[in-house]
């Protein structure tokens, strides 16, 4: 990410389109991706909280 520039973080799974939104168990790969997004969201918020407001 670029310092001082507000950037969106959009988290999503690499789910085949025909399974998107369906009631089901996530595959092992999807569970690993979901876990990774949890970490990335936390890092993103931590980074925002540690950024001093613009003067």
């Amino acid at each position, binding site marked *: 990410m670029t310092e001082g520039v507000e950037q969106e973080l959009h988290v999503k799974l690499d789910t085949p389109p025909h399974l998107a*939104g369906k009631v089901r*168990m996530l595959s092992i790969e999807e*569970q690993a991706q*979901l876990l990774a997004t949890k970490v990335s969201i936390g890092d*993103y*918020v931590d980074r925002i*909280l540690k950024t001093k407001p613009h003067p």
Partner: protein
Amino acid sequence: MDQPTRFPWGDFPDVLIHASESLVKNHHAYPAAKAGGTLAAVELIAGLMSASVLSDLRAYFDHRHPRLLSVHAEESGGINAIPEVMAATIAGALKWPYERQIVQTNVVSHTGANGYARLQRQAVFSGTVAAGLHYILVDDFIGQGGTLANLRGHIMAQGSQVLGATVLTGKDYSATLAATDLQLAGLRRKHGHIEDWWRQRFGFGFDCLTASEVRYLSRTATSSRVIERLEEISD
């Protein structure tokens, strides 16, 4: 789907709710946050998180050194970014650690679903935690409370305690998770003869239902109708 783990509620405190449903659901950032937009979730939480609820969380739980744990899940519209942003933000405000090793392993499509669909399609979780820790659960919404019940069970099964929970929004009457003895007795008078069937199907007895679930089931006229309504819902 896998069966969830639940435990009886004991004296579990009411869930602390930050904002009304109308404020949350009409917020311009809500749809994007619900579909994985993390900046939108930050904007939503920054705008609607309640200072008085944060103060209550600190007053009730700070002395027990809790860790925050969000319901992190894939939903019908994508990954819901709100709970984890909320957990990380509360963690920053209260200087509490937050847990990042637990995720929901199924898609349950509870949004807009009726009570029987929520009971039939229960959230299950994976990920390990160390024993002997104290947790506060975080979610964006409380309806019947089943998802929080199952996340609590996932933690308690590993030897840690869940002290309480906080959500961004939900109706006031959903905040009480522990059913009263009177409510449970009423449910058992009406449907007690299917409690063993219920335990086989879901892996827990009526004493592990939330107060909202108990009320919902108690409103169904007959036990055979309870079974029929559940059987109508596909997994």
